[in-house]
Every structure is written in structure tokens, then in C-alpha cells.
């Protein structure tokens, strides 16, 4: 998954670089909160989805505001 997102990042728009970045941030942050691997992974996936969801929402709002500009 990480490799795929890095490959995507290198071949496409600069926004794709945010995927591996969000992945690392959520994984490291979750690892610093919990000790058990299952809990870390569970929390990291949820955090990753939250980050990407939030960014997608902001992107959608900006896209809407700049529509036909």
C-alpha cells in the first residue's frame, strides 16, 4: 500500500504525496498512543481515514468555491 502510494506520488499530481505522508503520520502517532500491535493498527487505519476524509472535504469546498473561476 505504501509502495503503491509512493509510486503514484512520483508519477502524478503533487497531492498524491499526501497519501504516504498521512499514512506515516497516523501510524507513528498511533504507535505513540498504544502498545498492542492490533490496537495500533486499528487506530492508525481510522486516523488515516479521518485525515484523508478531512482533506477531501476541504478539497471539495475549495473546488466548489473556485468553480468556473
Amino acid at each position, binding site marked *: 500500500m505504501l509502495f503503491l502510494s*509512493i509510486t503514484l506520488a512520483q508519477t502524478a499530481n*503533487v497531492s498524491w*504525496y499526501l497519501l*504516504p*505522508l498521512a499514512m*506515516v*503520520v497516523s*501510524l*507513528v*502517532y498511533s*504507535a*505513540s*498512543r*498504544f*502498545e*498492542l*500491535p*492490533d*490496537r*495500533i493498527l486499528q*487506530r492508525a487505519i481510522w486516523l488515516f481515514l479521518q485525515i484523508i476524509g478531512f482533506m477531501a472535504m476541504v478539497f471539495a469546498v475549495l473546488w466548489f468555491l473556485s468553480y468556473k473561476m
Partner: protein
Amino acid sequence: MPTASPPERNKPWEQRNVVVAFVLAVLVPGLGHLFQGRTLKGLIYLFGILGLYLWGVKMGEGIVVYNLPEKVGAKRITLHYAAQLGAGVVSYPALWQNRRLLKGNEVVRKLEQPLSAKFSGELRRSDRDSLGGKLEGVVQFKLEKMEYGTETTGVFTGTLDGKPVKLPLAGNFALDPPVGAGFKRGLRCSVIGENDEPLPESRMIVGSIPRSLLDSYGVAPDQNQLQEVTGRLGKIHELALVFTWIAGLLNVLAIWDCVQGPAYGFGDEVATGTKPEIKPEEKLETPKPLADAPPADKILTPTSTLG
């Protein structure tokens, strides 16, 4: 979140010497955890933080990690570099590389010993400054004795726009200082004809050869170089900086975890101060009306019996 700990467990962050673990965690992300036997977390930090950091360095072509105070020679640590410092030993070279910039580090006009290196650049017509084609290959330079003294001469062997070419080189030789920011060292030299015959129009090769990691990593770029790289790479360079900053800041969390343990505990504790969960079968059921109960108007009350 207040939590109630289950029966006493071994806390791996308390098992080994905490000072040693702290120092290791500060030097290399995840190394403190590996020392404590917390292998999975150590690997997450090592590959996550260090990977992000080194990827940023590669994306920014090496002009990413540096301490560039406003005054040359000042010892102040900039905010830019302070964030990178968190990533540990990979960021420390910038602390001393700037001093090497000040010691006889100048553009080389004459080589002292032969040079052979990979070259990537373009062929330019020096009178028009226009592009003559893309060059990829190898340059070889040597010192040659002339009537008036020694001169650096050489040859480029490689391809010009994909076609094999061999270009004799001499005159106007200029090689960027040995110590400098970035993994590429600028090189330019005039192209001469076979047997030193003059060409109908003057041409130059302009490009770069690789610069060693020891001479480039952590060196602060000058303003022109910074402008050139930000102009060429654009957002990618900004993103490269962000990657190294975030990596440095993430390692602060890792160091904290190494010394104090995870912030929320193991992750299987039961939260206290919350209402106990009621199982569905334990929920109180609302009383159902009896099936054979008489209608309400048929129920005898003391007043109805009297009438």
C-alpha cells in the same frame, strides 16, 4: 482518558536503562525501542520517520537539510533546522558543514589532478545562450602543458539528444566549489574542434557532475542556488522540506514513548468514569397489557357498583 489498568503487566520501557534508551531514541528514530525489545514499534519509527526524512532529502535533491541564519557565520539555529533536528543524527551534519564552506572553498578554474565523472547537462552556443541539445555521458579532464603554462583539457563521451558524440574540451573551465549544497556540482567548459581547430561558432557544455555525500549533505545553499532549486522543483521542494520537518517532529513523540511509555496505555484497558454497558438481554422490558384483561369501561369501580 482515565483508564483502569488490568492486572500488573511488564512495562518494557521500564525494563532497560532508560537513559541509554533515551539517547538512542534521540540519535536514531526507533533505536531506543529496539534496545528495549519493542521491535514492532521500533521498526515503525525507524522506517516511518527515517524513511519520510530521507525521502524528503532525495526529493529536494539534497538542498533540504541546512541551517541558514540571516547572518553568515551566525550560530543561531533557525526554526527550519530546529524541526529537522528532531530526526536525530541524520540532521547533525548541518551543524558543522557551514564552517567548511568558509575555508578556501572556491570555484575551481584549474584542476590539480585528473578528473573523470558522469556528466549530465546540455550543449550551449555561448554566443546565443540557446540550447544545442541534451548531453548524457562521461567527462574526463587532465592537466596539459601549453606554451604559456598548464591548462585543463578534456573530452566528453556520451550522447547528444540520444546520438553518440565525442566532444573535445578546453578553455573557460569552471567547476563549482568542492563543498556545496546539493548532490550536483556545476561544471562548464568550452568545446573545441578536432586538433584544436576553431569551430564556426563557440559552444560550451553546461551541466553537472555528482558531488560526494560528505561534501554536500547538510551544507547551506546560497541564495542563488536556493532560488534555482525552488524555481526548478517548485512545490516538490516545499513538500520535501515539509517531509523532513514532520519527520523531526514525529520523532519527539517516539522519544516520549520510549521514555514514558505509550500515552494511552497498552490499548486494552477498560475506560473508567463511563456508564457500564447494559447487555440487551438485561435491559428492562416495558410491561405488556394482559391479553385477557377486560376493557377499561368494563372494569368495576366502587362508584359504578353503587349506581
